[in-house]
């Protein structure tokens, strides 16, 4: 409130001063042109005029912001401040290169650039926010007010911000294009100047506008469609990739041109580095997620509705009951296909046990002992299991009571029952111990190795190469080093793709072998009657786990987290707390009704 008052006073004072200066000049000279000369000749008057200009710019900016965005969210504001800080620093660095061109016009252009930039950022944030807010308000209004007329009216109201947003995006795109164009022509006609920087900045802004617009369109389609639109995430990933590529190319070009004409543009290094990193990540994401989703579609077995009906099956991703459309991962965890798909677009691991699905892509058949003859023959030839994931580790912060330990134990059990002949020592110890206090670390054996098939070729592609990160602020690096760095990044990406292709080859070969194997031995396997042992075993494990929890909890109550306690036992001095909680609960209960 106070800063607002101060800003208001500042603006008012500036207006008063300006009118005083202008009035004074006019009073002295009586005519328009001489008054202007009078003002420009006097330094104090000019200072007042500059301040006035600054205030006007701020006011216009405020007005535009109000017009296009309304009230800013706290997060948006924070974001804006943070990014402007970087933008100002980097442009100041850019000034040092072009100090000869320094002029009021230059400052004006820079201010304009900063304004447009901040509008791009705001538009970006707003489009991200738009993905959720209209849906929510609709949902709730639809629930509370059930009259069709009201619904229609609300729909119209909620369209207004979207119309404004699309208008803004069009405007920004057009402005970016205009400025790029003018910078281009100015550079062509007058030779390279500071216009080069502006042209480049606007070109980057243009890619950002394109990115935001595509996102905006995707969100709009998603909101309008009645069914969840699963392809959206894929489109988003690819948009990110293409825009990232464009940006990297732009930055590369800019660096080259600048290095040839002036000096190496130091101010562009940070954004260049960030862009390259983002592009690399986008590329990696696209490749890995495609691979994981492919694996899911082709390798992992569908879970039949009967199987789902037999077990307690809540999809851990969406917390909803699974009735159909579920897949079983190699680790035996079951999820909705669609949920898994969107998760694989982020990470290629099992959500429950973090098994890396790209490293163990073979499908998991129902547990059964392999044919003894083949097993003996293969027992020695079985390759050493790849380095186990640190899955057995406990988080630092979480006392083990709260750990989702159940799936992991189930796993260890599956693995040990699966590989009866070649079971590792650690997994058989799970079965032997009467009450496992905690899941044994590294009890996890990769299921694919549980049954025999010819060992994979000796060469197994190395895990993705880790790229050494350059120093944070690129201090003490010469231009050559930086250029070399960019080259190295590209080379790494290429290597990675090659590596992934190799992996794919191996996987395909493995799948082929699996198919051959299962057709050859299929009849024998499906007549074996080991299937029912699995649920029994899981039940046993569950019991054991329950007991383990009980045992775990008892010492915990004495030293660790407070044991369950009735609310009446709250001490006297905690009355405020109790009051607060009561209020809170009261507040929640009506909400809860409306939420249902």
């Amino acid at each position, binding site marked *: 409130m106070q800063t607002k008052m101060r800003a208001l006073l500042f603006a008012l004072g500036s207006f008063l001063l300006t009118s005083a200066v202008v009035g004074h000049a006019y009073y002295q000279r009586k005519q328009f042109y001489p008054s202007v000369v009078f003002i420009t000749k006097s330094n104090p008057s000019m200072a007042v005029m500059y301040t006035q200009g600054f205030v006007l710019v701020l006011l216009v900016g405020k007005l535009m912001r109000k017009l296009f965005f309304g009230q800013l969210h706290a*997060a948006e504001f924070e974001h804006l401040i943070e990014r402007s800080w970087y933008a100002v620093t980097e442009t100041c660095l850019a000034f040092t290169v072009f100090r000869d061109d320094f002029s009021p016009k230059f400052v004006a252009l820079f201010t304009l650039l900063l304004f447009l930039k901040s509008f791009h950022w705001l538009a970006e944030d707003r489009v*991200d926010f738009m*993905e*959720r*807010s209209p*849906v*929510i*308000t609709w*949902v*709730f209004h639809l629930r509370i007010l059930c009259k069709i007329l009201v619904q229609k009216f609300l729909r119209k109201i909620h369209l207004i911000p979207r119309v404004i947003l699309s208008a803004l995006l069009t405007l920004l795109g057009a402005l970016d294009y205009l400025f790029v164009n003018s910078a281009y022509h100015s550079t062509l006609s007058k030779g390279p100047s500071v216009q080069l920087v502006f042209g480049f900045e606007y070109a980057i802004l243009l890619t950002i506008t394109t990115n935001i617009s595509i996102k905006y369109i995707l969100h709009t389609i*998603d909101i309008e469609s009645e069914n*969840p639109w699963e392809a*959206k995430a894929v489109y988003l990933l690819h948009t990110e990739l293409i825009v990232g590529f464009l940006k990297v190319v732009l930055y590369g070009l800019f660096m080259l041109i600048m290095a040839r004409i002036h000096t190496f543009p130091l101010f562009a290094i940070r954004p260049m580095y960030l862009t390259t990193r983002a592009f690399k990540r986008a590329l990696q994401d696209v490749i890995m997620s495609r691979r994981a989703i492919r694996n899911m579609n082709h390798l992992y077995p569908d879970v039949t509705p009967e199987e789902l009906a037999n077990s307690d099956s809540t999809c*851990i*991703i*969406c*917390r*909803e009951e699974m009735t159909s459309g579920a897949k079983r991962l190699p680790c035996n965890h079951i999820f909705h296909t669609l949920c898994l798909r*969107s*998760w694989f*677009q*982020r*990470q290629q*691991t099992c*959500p*429950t046990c*973090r098994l890396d699905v790209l490293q163990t892509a073979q499908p998991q058949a129902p547990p059964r002992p392999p044919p003894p003859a083949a097993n003996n023959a293969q027992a020695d030839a079985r390759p050493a299991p790849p380095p186990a*994931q*640190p*899955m057995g*580790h406990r*988080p*630092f*912060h*979480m*006392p083990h009571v*709260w750990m*989702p330990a159940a799936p992991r134990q189930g796993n260890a059990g599956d693995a040990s029952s699966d590989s009866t002949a070649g079971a590792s020592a650690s997994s058989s110890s799970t079965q032997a111990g009467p009450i496992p206090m905690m899941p044994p670390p590294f009890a996890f054996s990769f299921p694919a190795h549980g049954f025999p098939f010819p060992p994979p070729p000796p060469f197994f592609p190395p895990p993705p190469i880790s790229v050494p990160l350059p120093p944070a602020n690129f201090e003490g690096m010469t231009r050559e080093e930086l250029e070399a760095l960019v080259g190295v990044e590209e080379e790494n990406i290429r290597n990675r793709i090659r590596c992934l292709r190799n992996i794919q080859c191996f996987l395909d070969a493995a799948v082929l072998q699996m198919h051959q194997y299962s057709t050859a031995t299929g009849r024998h396997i499906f007549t074996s009657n080991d299937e029912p042992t699995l649920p029994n075993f899981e039940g046993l494990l569950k019991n054991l786990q329950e007991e383990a929890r009980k045992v775990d909890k008892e010492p915990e109550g004495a030293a*660790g*987290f*407070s*044991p*369950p*306690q009735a609310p009446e036992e709250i*001490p006297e*001095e*905690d009355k*405020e*707390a109790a009051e*607060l*909680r009561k209020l*809170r609960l009261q*507040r*929640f*209960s009506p*909400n*809860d009704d*409306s*939420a*249902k």
Partner: protein
Amino acid sequence: MARYALRRLMAEYKQLTVNPPEGIIAGPMNEENFFEWEALITGPEDTPFEGGVFPAKLQFPSDYPLSPPKMQFTCEMFHPNIYPDGRVCISILHSPGDDPTGYESSSERWSPVQSVEKILLSVVSMLAEPNDESAANLDAAKMWRDDRQQFNQIAQKLVRHTLGLQ
């Protein structure tokens, strides 16, 4: 995407209201926006934070539960794993790949298995047992290691503060 997030948040909210864990209350700030929650966490017993009621807010991304929420205490806090501005820095609130401290292995990171309840319980146990390996507040971490008595005094002061007893 957001619809999924909304449905899961509603399910979690229902679960938290029907079957609330001891010492924790959480729910959306208002019914217009289910992506911002507030939570009240009571300090665990037998720790310097015992008896305190600490308000915090949670911000959920539109792709929840694929990405973790952000959590920030809205009261003054002094703890090795809480930034001076109240943001909570524990491993399950980070997705693998973003690692502000460099001390967390990816097995402890966010995954859809986690939930609001698990986050809040982790925060409770973080209050009880700070992890000074990945410190967000260096002063607090140092004091917690070297001068436990003073740390406890500050924590007690904060507790009284949250109860409005100062």
